[in-house]
């Protein structure tokens, strides 16, 4: 990076933060992703998680909970999940409701979750701002419906509230939700076939869930880049799998 550009970035950051304390980070565990994000997910800021396609919406939520499992492990307090329920019950009727046992599998203890269902977009924004301003939470997860896009001012208020309380805010957006402008980073999640576990049956067993993460933009100036990620349910850790060359071959169907 050219030195004058770096100097300019520092200058802009100084103007942006106006002497507020510099942000700390929560490492996700995937080294290259953490390096690109400048240490991990921003504490005191909003990180946007966006599905690459409509069918990837569950995957983006899956990934968000994988990150929050880490947050719940490392930080005290509870996780507040705010749903925009203006479309009906749950996170849109398309995917249903959060399910306790499945979250526990990911390492998110269900009894540490406070679920808030906002009846409309306005309430959703107010609740998110309120939760982001609350000290001592492990994290805040916002599940936006398609119409829950933030105005510039509203988004900035949430961002400032999060900065004030050092909260970790993940905004899982619907595919068509408008972007959250002041987010520290925008992560686009796409599903990726996992590494199957050969079981000797006709169909192989499921390996650890795998995603392709595209870092679309980040406030620290990292260039857009993609990462392959996997999540280990047993150790509750997010990691980058071995490179393609080392991957186990696709299991062949055994001939009779």
């Amino acid at each position: 990076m050219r030195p004058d550009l770096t100097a300019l970035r520092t200058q802009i950051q100084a103007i942006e933060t106006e002497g507020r304390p510099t942000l700390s980070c929560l490492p996700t565990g995937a080294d290259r992703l953490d390096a690109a994000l400048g240490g991990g997910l921003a504490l005191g800021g909003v990180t946007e998680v966006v599905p690459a396609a409509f069918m990837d919406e569950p995957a983006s939520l899956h990934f968000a909970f994988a990150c929050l499992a880490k947050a719940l492990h490392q930080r005290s307090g509870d996780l507040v999940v705010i749903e925009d329920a203006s479309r009906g019950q749950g996170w849109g009727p398309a995917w249903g409701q959060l399910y306790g046992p499945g979250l526990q599998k990911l390492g998110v203890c269900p009894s540490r979750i406070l679920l808030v269902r906002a009846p409309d977009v306005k309430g959703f924004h107010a609740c998110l701002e309120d939760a982001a301003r609350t000290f001592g939470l492990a994290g805040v997860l916002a599940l936006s419906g398609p119409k829950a896009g933030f105005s510039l001012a509203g988004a900035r208020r949430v961002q400032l509230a999060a900065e004030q309380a050092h909260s970790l805010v993940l905004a899982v957006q619907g595919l068509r939700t408008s972007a959250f402008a002041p987010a520290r980073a925008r992560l686009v999640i796409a599903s990726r076939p996992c590494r199957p576990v050969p079981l000797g049956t006709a169909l192989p067993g499921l390996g650890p869930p795998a995603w392709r993460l595209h870092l679309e933009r980040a406030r620290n100036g990292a260039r857009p880049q993609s990462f392959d990620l996997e999540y280990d349910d047993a150790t509750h850790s997010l990691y980058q799998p071995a490179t393609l060359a080392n991957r186990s071959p696709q299991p062949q169907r055994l001939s009779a």
Partner: protein
Amino acid sequence: MMLAGAKALVPDVCVADSDPVGEGEDLTALARWAMRWSPYCAPVKGLEGTHALFLDITGCAHLFGGEAAMLADMVIKMRALGLTARAACAATPGAAFALARFAPEARHGLSAPDGAALRALVGPLPVEALRLPSGTTTGLRALGLKTIGQVATQSSAALARRFGIDLVRALDRARGLEEEAIDPVAEIIPRRIRLRLAEPLMTRHGLELAGAKAAGEMCTFLDSYNEGARRLVLNLYRVDGVVLQLVGGSGRAHRDAVLWTKVLCERIEAEANGAGLDLGFGVDLVEVCAPVVEVLEGQVMDLDPVAAAALASADALHRLADRLSARLGAGRVTRMEAVAHWVPEQAVRQVAVADRRPQVSHFPEALAARRPALLLERAEPIDAIAEVPDGPPRLFRWRALAFKVACAEGPERIACGEAHDRDYYRIETSEGRRFWLYRQGLPGKVDHPKWYVHGSAA
């Protein structure tokens, strides 16, 4: 008079059917409003065509400047509602009723003395004041006993033989000799703070200030009893005889005036934004009651910084939950609770945090390992091609999209009764999307088992 006769006299007379049920409801609403004078308030039952309220004002009168001033206040307030009211106050409800109905002074409120003076006052009143069935009063009149005093001169044994024991009891009640129980119209809540306002409140802002003041006084009040409230009820008595009620709850008992003020203000705001808070001609009495209280001992401050931080963070979360429950409604702020049930959709229950403290829930590890993170409200049918007889699906079509299954794990069999037994599979499609599918009906028992999607992010 017949209706035709009345119409002949006054051609544009207004006619309406009698509506005893509606009148009863109105009387109950009026009783609710009359709780502004005393919480022990009830409509009098068993009267035909006349309406009356009983109020037990024991210990209340001095708040209004004595019995006479209180009665005058009642008459004036009722008149402002467009009602013709007569009020009397006596040692027993029976005597008060008799005086209110038939003593001429009751028009402006009559405060009767006790003992012999009361009996002298009740004596000249007609026998109808005894609240007896019309058959009995007609019988008394036929015997020439027209007033309570005349009936009282008879021997009670003879009266009981002739008219039944009810007459003797009614006589004693009317003469201030026998008490009578009142069944109050609403629950009596001992923890109660009221603010009487000189000028009716017309604005939301004023209401919030009054609510804050009452909540503050309530918290001081609870402090003296070492109690904390789980729920506060804000009653707003409108000038025009309507009582508005707002309820604010909390996930734990506390007596923090600032927090309760916030919760009540959130409720006022939510009400104003929702159905609309109709203050009519203003609110002249604001009341805060604490129907659910718990003993709350003082807390020792923790000097260990880590423990103190954990305590502060739990406190902050409670405040957030209370505030959001007040704003959105209790049912919208919930926690998950595990239920020991093998049917997946019934294994989790949502508990509103304002209602009760949810149990710490943990699902069996082995079961959780096979569950998805998102569960559909209702399983959706799919077209699937599966190995026969009991293999996992290979291809399926859901919401007009075709999926090819690359990996599968299962089956996990869940018994739901013969034809509804389910075989669950966790599957991943060739694009890496994970679903939780099941086949309903066991192979061999059902000819064409049906397939459903029940969850995603499995």
